[in-house]
């Protein structure tokens, strides 16, 4: 079998739709299919569509052990994050105006918090530890009497580390603080049990787990009941929390993706862990490579590595036959290395030198072996080109060099 190039190792950016999901989606589009508006109450077209939407809702709820009534459809995790954070902050504004979050959160959370700051709320942005995990004591200390909400992601999109949301839930519940968790990168990869975890709001995305783009959901706890102020007004869909005609095909696709995830998660995690370890073992004996993020508290599909003394963008360019992403975004005169790696305390060189490999359902052993060979070859080539590598080999401490910053 010949490899399809470039090899796709960017599953945390998005995933291809599973063929089983695509089939269900297609059934909801044409005249012959279930094209009806789920809000139509006066004919079978609407009733059929409504049933499909409710089946999908049950599938999403079931993966995370929630009640289907606690699931609200949205356009994706970004919208879910916005609805959860702004919705809760606005509803509970009389109770307090303080919010706690983490510097390594997704921009959908950070930028929403920035907006709330402009509206007069106060936000604490916590630093994670060097392994990417949150120190629970530091988290507890950050909570104040006027704290209404904490938002902590379950799995980090760049480094794949898993936060202890069960423990955070206990802390928040004891302090009467609402806990929102962005689970875009964890659903279908990490066990989530909302009957036992004291999480109040949880954001989901379809396209990170082999569903379609443009579909997501927000879990809103009923016991104890969490109230939100709607951010989208209109026909009062989704119990008034999110108006707008439901995208039946997207929702059905998301439901099927979550159903498959529930059934296949255990076996899939085992297979992907083996592939990830194969990749890691193929690279870790190289000189000056660093794994970013905790090695154990981490999802199976993520490997984030810094290849010291090689700049990330040139490495991505050299690795054009594999599709990966870099922690270095060299798009302006002042180069911005990954804010996530910076928050872990990684120095600029290492932050600039990082590559995120994310594996998934369709990754093969052959693809991993190809990747190992290519990465080793290209890193060696770029190091031969690198004055920093030369200095390192000569034993010069790069920290002691006075650089002419530009």
């Amino acid at each position, binding site marked *: 079998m010949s490899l399809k190039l470039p090899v796709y190792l960017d599953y945390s950016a998005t995933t291809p739709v599973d063929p089983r999901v695509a089939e269900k989606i297609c059934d909801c589009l044409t005249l012959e299919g279930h094209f009806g508006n789920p809000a139509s109450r006066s004919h079978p077209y609407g009733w059929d569509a409504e049933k499909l939407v409710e089946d999908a809702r049950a599938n999403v709820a079931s993966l995370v052990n929630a009640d289907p009534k606690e699931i609200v459809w949205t356009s994706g995790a970004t919208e879910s994050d916005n609805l959860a954070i702004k919705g809760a902050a606005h509803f509970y504004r009389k109770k307090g105006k303080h919010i706690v979050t983490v510097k390594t959160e997704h921009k959908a959370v950070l930028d929403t918090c920035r907006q709330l700051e402009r509206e007069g709320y106060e936000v604490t942005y916590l630093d994670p530890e060097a392994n990417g995990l949150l120190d629970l004591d530091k988290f507890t200390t950050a909570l104040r009497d006027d704290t209404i909400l904490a938002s902590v992601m379950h799995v980090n999109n760049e480094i794949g580390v898993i936060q202890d949301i069960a423990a955070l839930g206990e802390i928040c519940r004891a302090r009467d603080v609402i806990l929102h968790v962005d689970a875009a990168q964890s659903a279908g990869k990490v066990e989530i049990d909302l009957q036992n975890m004291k999480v109040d709001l949880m954001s989901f995305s379809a396209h990170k787990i082999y569903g379609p783009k443009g579909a997501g959901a927000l879990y809103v706890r009923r016991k104890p009941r969490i109230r939100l102020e709607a951010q989208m007004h209109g026909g009062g869909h989704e119990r008034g929390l999110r108006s707008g005609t439901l995208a039946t095909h997207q929702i059905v696709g998301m439901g099927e993706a979550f159903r498959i995830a529930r059934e296949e998660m255990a076996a899939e995690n085992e297979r992907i862990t083996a592939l990830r370890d194969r990749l890691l073992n193929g690279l870790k004996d190289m000189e000056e490579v660093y794994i970013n993020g905790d090695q154990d508290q981490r999802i199976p599909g993520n490997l984030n590595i810094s290849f010291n003394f090689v700049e990330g963008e*040139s490495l991505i360019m050299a690795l054009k036959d594999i599709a990966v992403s870099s922690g270095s975004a060299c798009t302006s005169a002042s180069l911005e290395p990954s804010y996530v790696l910076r928050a872990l305390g990684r120095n600029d060189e290492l932050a600039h030198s990082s590559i995120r490999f994310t594996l998934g359902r369709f990754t093969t052993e052959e693809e991993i072996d190809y990747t190992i060979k290519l990465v080793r070859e290209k890193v060696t080539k770029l190091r031969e080109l690198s004055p920093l590598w030369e200095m390192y080999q000569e034993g010069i401490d790069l920290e002691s060099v006075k*650089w002419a*910053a530009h």
Partner: protein
Amino acid sequence: MAYSDKVLDHYENPRNVGALDKESSNVGTGMVGAPACGDVMKLQIRVNDAGVIEDAKFKTYGCGSAIASSSLLTEWVKGKTLEEAQQIKNSDIAEELALPPVKVHCSVLAEDAIKAAISDFQSKQEK
């Protein structure tokens, strides 16, 4: 980001990669940039008694455009007198490689590198 064919060519087949003896009196070394900014260029020239650049070598840590800018520069300065090499402008490099505006700083760095190498050579001669 789409790179021009010339950038890709220099990136895939960089010219004059390597090092000259930095202790030698007829070698000038220029190192510019900083790891924190994502690019560091080291450019070395060997100058003969007539003041002509006989050889040039580079090593660059940086994006494809930075590598291409320094590779191109080594090609250009070989055979030039120091005065001529001094005249090379970043805009010439940017134009030759068709660098997009966000990558123009790579050519600026290359111009800084040759100037630094020439000045290092000249300061060695004064001793």
